[in-house]
């Protein structure tokens, strides 16, 4: 623990009570986010990445959701705050960017109104001040002619422009933590690169920590310092980004990295088919016993079917697997 921790999650468990049964979307995860760093969270769809982010800000309707554990932000447990207290945190100290830039802005309000609404809410400034700050934020996220754009409705903007506006809104109160839930997934590649660059730059300027949730490993490699790999609600591996890419410990991480198409790979290792992880993610209602990855794991052993894997700590890395015991 060289740096001090901004957000620390202890045994976070989020369950949904549904008619079919209880779904455990996040199953007792532990994560630390240090000041000024970017933590990447990767995993397949439905592994609990987004639910983790929503649980941090308590944005899940409860019931049906039930959130247990501790989420300490600057030493205060977000899960035990009153609704008014958590509302003070939302958008102010912790804000969030969503995956869908096309639908995350309200179509009936101008972009400027939406950004200044957030500013007015947390900074107690007048309408005019909030408006000029909103325009300034649009300028910072490099929206061309921001004073005109602020008076326009979202439908006139492209996906990339809207995502910039979302980032402007999320960063308008200079949050200390930004939860970015697949911020580039819906954008095309050139725009993705611009958004990544923008987030990198703003992270330095505003000095926020970022939790970057994605299934795009390239984005993780670009932005994150540490990575947590999630599978079916558990963090199966956590490591500094270089270590993870060079030497993945968990077979699932191995599979994930192996399934990325690699331009030029053919040249080095001969004609080789793109790898895949066999099978499908099982339903959260039928979580496999013991290690939940064993039915799909190429290196599964007898013990993987019988006992829950231990958490192995290995020079600054954590892995949830019998292989390394």
């Amino acid at each position, binding site marked *: 623990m060289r740096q001090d921790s901004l957000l620390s999650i202890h045994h976070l468990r989020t369950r949904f009570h549904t008619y079919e049964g209880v779904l455990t979307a996040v199953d007792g995860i532990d994560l630390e986010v240090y000041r000024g760093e970017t933590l990447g969270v990767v995993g397949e769809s439905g592994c609990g990445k987004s639910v983790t982010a929503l649980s941090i*800000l308590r*944005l899940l*309707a409860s*019931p049906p959701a039930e959130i247990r554990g501790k989420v300490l932000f600057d030493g205060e447990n977000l899960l035990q705050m009153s609704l008014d207290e958590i*509302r*003070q*945190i*939302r*958008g*102010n100290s912790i*804000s*969030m960017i*969503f*995956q*869908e830039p096309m*639908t*995350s*802005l*309200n*179509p*009936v*309000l101008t972009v400027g109104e939406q950004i200044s*609404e*957030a500013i007015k*809410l*947390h900074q107690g400034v007048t309408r005019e001040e909030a408006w000029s700050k909103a325009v300034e934020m649009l300028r910072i996220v490099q929206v*061309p*002619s921001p004073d*005109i*754009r602020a*008076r*326009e409705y979202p439908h*006139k903007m492209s996906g990339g422009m809207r995502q910039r506006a*979302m980032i402007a*809104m*999320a960063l308008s109160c200079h949050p200390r933590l930004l939860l970015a839930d697949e911020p580039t997934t819906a954008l095309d590649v050139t725009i993705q690169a611009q958004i990544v660059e923008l987030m990198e730059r703003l992270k330095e300027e505003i000095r926020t920590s970022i939790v970057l949730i994605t299934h795009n490993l390239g984005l993780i490699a670009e932005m994150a310092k540490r990575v947590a790999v999630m599978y079916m609600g558990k963090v199966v591996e956590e490591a500094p980004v270089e270590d993870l890419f060079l030497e993945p410990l968990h077979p699932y991480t191995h599979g994930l990295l192996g399934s990325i198409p690699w331009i030029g790979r053919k040249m080095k290792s001969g004609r080789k088919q793109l790898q895949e992880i066999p099978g499908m993610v099982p339903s959260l209602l039928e979580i496999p016993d013991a290690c939940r990855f064993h039915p799909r794991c190429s290196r599964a052993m007898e013990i993987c079917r019988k006992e829950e894997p231990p958490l192995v700590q290995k020079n600054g890395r954590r892995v949830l697997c019998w292989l390394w015991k």
Partner: protein
Amino acid sequence: MHEMTQTQVIRNPHRQADSQLRRRWAKLRRNKAALFGSVLILIYLIIALLAPILFPGNPSAPNLMKSLERPSMEHPLGTDELGRSILGRIIYGSRVSLLIAIGVVMVGLLVGLPLGLISGYYGGKVDFGIQRVTDTLLAFPGFLLALALVAVLGVGLKNTIISVGISMVPIYIRLVRGCTLSVREQTYVEAARAMGTRDMTILIRHILPNVMAPITIQTSLGMGTAILFAAGLGFLGIGVQPPTPEWGAMLGSGRAYLFNAPHVATFPGIAIFFAVLGFNLSGDGLRDILDPRFKL
């Protein structure tokens, strides 16, 4: 490149707002039925506003010497059993009917809109409670409900508006709740919550404007139904009371003379018919204009 985008942006705003209006107008013009409906409503509105000019006398003053006269130059639509001009009473009746139409949807919206928003947004027990009451009210045919309410509240213009209005409340609750349910799941509502926006602000600033289109349509259709319901109550003699000229009541009193003076019941009937037709056609037209799925 930079300058180019700028000039484009500067040039656009007014023209686009303009062209959107023009596009909607063009759409309305193409939709002949909706246009006809709107013109009908407009005519009724003008008649209601200019009633004292169009018919200078007192529409309720009886003149028994001239009872049940056929249409003539003096009374273009004839007279009723008390010798009052039917044209005059229809003209003044349009005021009553439009007042009822507006009053009824106001009651419906005033009660139905907030309840529907709350029910759809909060869900859970609140939703369950509101929806079971709505179910109960919807189980009655609308007119029967209005009838029962009149039995409790009593007759008269105000009570007619309240009774018919309440009988329409469940329709608004259902409609608003349904729309709220779908808007609530939109990312921008989640984003607003993630920014720390209060529920009240989310409901009024983010959800309400996004459910306005179906509500507007229902309001227009609802006005037609309101006129019909109020006329029905008037016909039964438990709506607006004489001597106030009201189409339904005129129809009811004309019923007795259907064979020897059919005009007494016919003309108010025609007035009701075209008013309801006007609101229904323009409601359909509004749907075509406001509902993006019907974009031509």
